[in-house]
């Protein structure tokens, strides 16, 4: 298995423990909420030290879980959370309402929710997945292509809607954008999973018959959109 093969790092990630899988959303939550406060101009040294120690606790949890099992993971989890709380609360400007950035707060909440979910979920084992280990290399590259396309669409969806001046609308736009990203990513995941199912794909007619309801609604919406555009 070559270094450039996406299955090599995907396989290593799949074989990792729960702490390793939770480290990415944890690092994201830390970067969005804790780091900006800890390294703000008037932040005390204790906030910086606690923030750095939190990162060490987060990634140290990977080794701790391998050595001590679930107890190591639990200790790392609580150490990371408490050190983040210490860093954030030590930063004097973090709790001032005027300094509270709604969009960053929303992204931070999403990050912490993802960290909580990935920390509570059991580690996915290499054996429990579909046929990733047996799939041909070209099929893995196809999966990587679909994943890349999904990421491109998600980045595109996140790159729009940043011009509004109203705080409430900015929050609404970001919530809708995040929900859209999750929906698009879910659909692309279905596409990737479909390629690994056994058997021959049903005919185009059968697939169209299965999806006739949403397709008819989509056609109606397209016609209505054109009519309204011309009418205006």
């Amino acid at each position: 298995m070559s270094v450039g093969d996406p299955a090599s790092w995907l396989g290593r990630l799949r074989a990792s423990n729960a702490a390793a899988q939770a480290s990415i959303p944890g690092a994201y939550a830390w970067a969005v909420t804790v780091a900006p406060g800890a390294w703000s101009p008037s932040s005390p040294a204790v906030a910086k030290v606690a923030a750095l120690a939190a990162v060490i606790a987060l990634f140290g949890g990977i080794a701790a879980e391998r050595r001590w099992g679930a107890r190591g993971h639990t200790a790392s989890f609580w150490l990371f959370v408490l050190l983040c709380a210490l860093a954030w609360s030590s930063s004097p400007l973090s709790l001032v309402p005027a300094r509270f950035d709604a969009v960053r707060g929303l992204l931070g909440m999403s990050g912490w929710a993802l960290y909580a979910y990935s920390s509570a979920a059991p580690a996915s084992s290499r054996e429990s997945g579909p046929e990733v280990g047996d799939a041909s290399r070209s099929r893995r590259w196809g999966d990587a292509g679909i994943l890349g396309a999904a990421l491109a669409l998600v980045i595109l969806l996140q790159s729009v809607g940043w011009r509004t001046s109203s705080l409430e609308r900015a929050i609404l736009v970001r919530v809708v954008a995040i929900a859209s990203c999750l929906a698009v990513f879910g659909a692309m995941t279905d596409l990737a999973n479909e390629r690994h199912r056994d058997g021959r794909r049903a005919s185009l007619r059968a697939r169209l018959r299965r999806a006739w309801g949403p397709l008819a609604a989509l056609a109606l919406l397209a016609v209505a959109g054109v009519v309204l555009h011309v009418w205006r």
Partner: protein
Amino acid sequence: MCGADIVREMHFADPLAVALVVVASASLIFGIISLDRAEDAAAAYGLVAGAVALRAATRVVGPGDRV
């Protein structure tokens, strides 16, 4: 593994579903931009069209009638 192999393998993905996901993404982007500009009717149209297109894509590739 050359580029042609990768593209050929990508073709195993359902082209109809891929097209629907692309349409859905375009509609959602239109909806988000409209929402950002406080054009609520256009935003609702784009978001509903995006959601319906995504539903159609998942119905097309969804589990069921492998033969």
